[in-house]
């Protein structure tokens, strides 16, 4: 406080010399409570466009019996933007949605994924080789449904290298 009062610029300012009068105080209180009320109402109403239920269809999809994906096969499911692989250790699936800004990366014969939008390049296991993508392509959760079909959940990512043994 003592430091402040030595500040000459402050001392000269009218605000410092005349503490708020009662009328000023009441006026300010009135204005600021109006501002606060409308502000709260505004923020409250902005809750509306923030969705709590999403329109997308169920992210869990049955993709057929495991026999559809024999050992060594590579299958493209374009609707799900998904590639399903079956190697020596089991089944796994990689999303082709680019982790940069959501374009669809194409997979060429050598297994490399290339994104057309800003040139991200991913290794066959989804790791970033080049370009702006911040993370590897997502590996998607897989499981078996009681009727014996394979199940994927495109909303759930699993760590790189997770496989479903069959």
């Amino acid at each position: 406080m003592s430091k402040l009062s030595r500040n000459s610029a402050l001392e000269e300012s009218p605000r410092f010399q005349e503490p708020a009068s009662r009328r000023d105080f009441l006026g300010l209180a009135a204005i600021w409570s109006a501002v606060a009320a409308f502000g709260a109402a505004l923020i409250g109403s902005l809750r509306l466009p923030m969705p709590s239920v999403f329109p997308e269809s169920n992210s869990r999809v049955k993709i057929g019996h495991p026999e559809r994906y024999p050992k060594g096969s590579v299958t493209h499911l374009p609707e799900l933007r998904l590639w399903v692989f079956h190697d020596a250790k089991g089944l796994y699936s990689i999303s082709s949605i680019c982790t940069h800004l959501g374009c669809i990366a194409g997979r060429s014969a050598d297994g490399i994924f290339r994104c057309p939008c800003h040139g991200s390049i991913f290794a066959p296991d989804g790791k970033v080789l080049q370009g702006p993508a911040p993370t590897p392509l997502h590996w998607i959760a897989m499981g078996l449904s009681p009727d014996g079909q394979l199940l994927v959940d495109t909303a759930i990512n699993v760590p790189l290298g997770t496989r479903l043994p069959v």
Partner: protein
Amino acid sequence: MTTTPVEKSINGRQPPVEVSPALEERGGLPAFLANLKALPDTARDSVVRHGVPTSDRARSQTVFSNFFLHVMSVRVHLRSLKFSATMGLGIILLVLFGILTFTGILLMVYYKPAVDLAYDSMKDIIYVVPSGRFIRNIHRWAAHGMVLCVFLHMARVFYTAAYKKPREFNWVIGMALFVLTLGLSFTGYLLPWDQLAFWACTIGANIAQSPRELTDALGITASLDIGGMQKELLLGAHYVGQEALVRFYVLHVVVLPLVLTLFAAVHIWRIRKDGGLAKPAETVPPRPTGKDVEAPSMTAMTPKQGDPSTRTWGLMALMKGRTPAVGKELRNTIPAYPNALYAIAALAMLTTAVMLFLGYFFDAPLKELANPGIPENPAKAPWYFLGLQEMVSYSAFMGGVGIPAVVILGLALIPYLDREREIPGRWICGQEGIRVAWQTALFSFLFTVALLTFTVNFGWLRNWFLEIPQIIITFVNPGTVLVTAFIVWSLGIIGKTRSTRMSAIALFTCFIVAFVVLTYFATVHRGPNWDFYWWPSQWPTH
């Protein structure tokens, strides 16, 4: 305000014959017929209140008493009407916004914001609706024109130092108008629901989500997912679909135009209150000098008893300064009516003519129907976002959020950080300014081109160190290097010239040059997979 004698004198003719006699008397059939005969005159006089003004004073009254004209001051400075002072860009912007509103409402008659119908309704507008293609073309070219002019207008305001006190805040309002204009373009882009629309908006929405790049790196996405929230708010879903289309539609046709109208109104009003356009000091009414000139306020105008030198006059509240405006200031002014009106009308006609020409001869593109399975290759944003797209191809967060935020904030703060009093309304303030501008233009051109050349030939960090953490790339990429270099250069200019205005000129010039170079580069030299090509004709055909 207007007293009867004044009104009489500006009429320049007798007021219409007073048909009905005194109040208590009634009029019969003859009075009715006479009223009927006088109807065109009485109706007209009830609307415009006076006849054709013949004296300067009457012209002033015309402006003063007309709702639409009174946004102008009664007299304008000769300089403000010169083309070289404004290039008419602000007015052109208003006219373009008017054209966009008009054609936009016409398009709304047929356009349907539903994913199954939007594309077909665009086809209808182009091929079936009478003059639909023409109106759509005009809407498209006017939108491009508005973005172009908003850049040019900002540059003219900057280089003529018209953002200086007391116009600082109007510059900030201008920045809001700049952002709103870009927002309108972006939201309009999705509506045709073609391939370009779909993928540009997918990318845009994911840019809104890109703060995740940062929160992921810090490991706090689970608790604080700003990026995810922004995307959900924008799309109402996690992908571009029906919800997103409706949201973009609402923003494009209601929210943003309304907000832009509001801001434009304040913008224009403030120009008027700031004493018209900025003009060189010799022609500005003398101001009280001294360090802390208090902002003029209504209370400052309260007449002080007894001291004639500080006596003030009611009407002078519109002006700044304490002496009645006589002599000097009026010398270089002319009545706004009709001179400014003619200038505005000429600009409006010119702008409209150009739009009609473009709309008639050049068709706005429409790609094939949106296909969420296959992106366009290359998927290019409209030209004014291509510089950003180039930045985004280094880092989504920095290019799409970080750098734009820094640039907009930096531009908005210019009037507060450069408070030097210098001749406003003069281009680049003379010899020194021109030299700084040229040197900076050369520097930023060479630096940007060199950086792009380097990046194209040698790649960036990830090409050399495959396992490098993303957070390093987020903060060290060609985009941030560019911004840092520009800031360092501008600080250097402060040191060398000891002038904040010179430094501001340097910074702004860097921004403009980099914008132009990046836009050109991404337009011409980026092809499929965002690879470098010398020319679009070399793109591989698939």
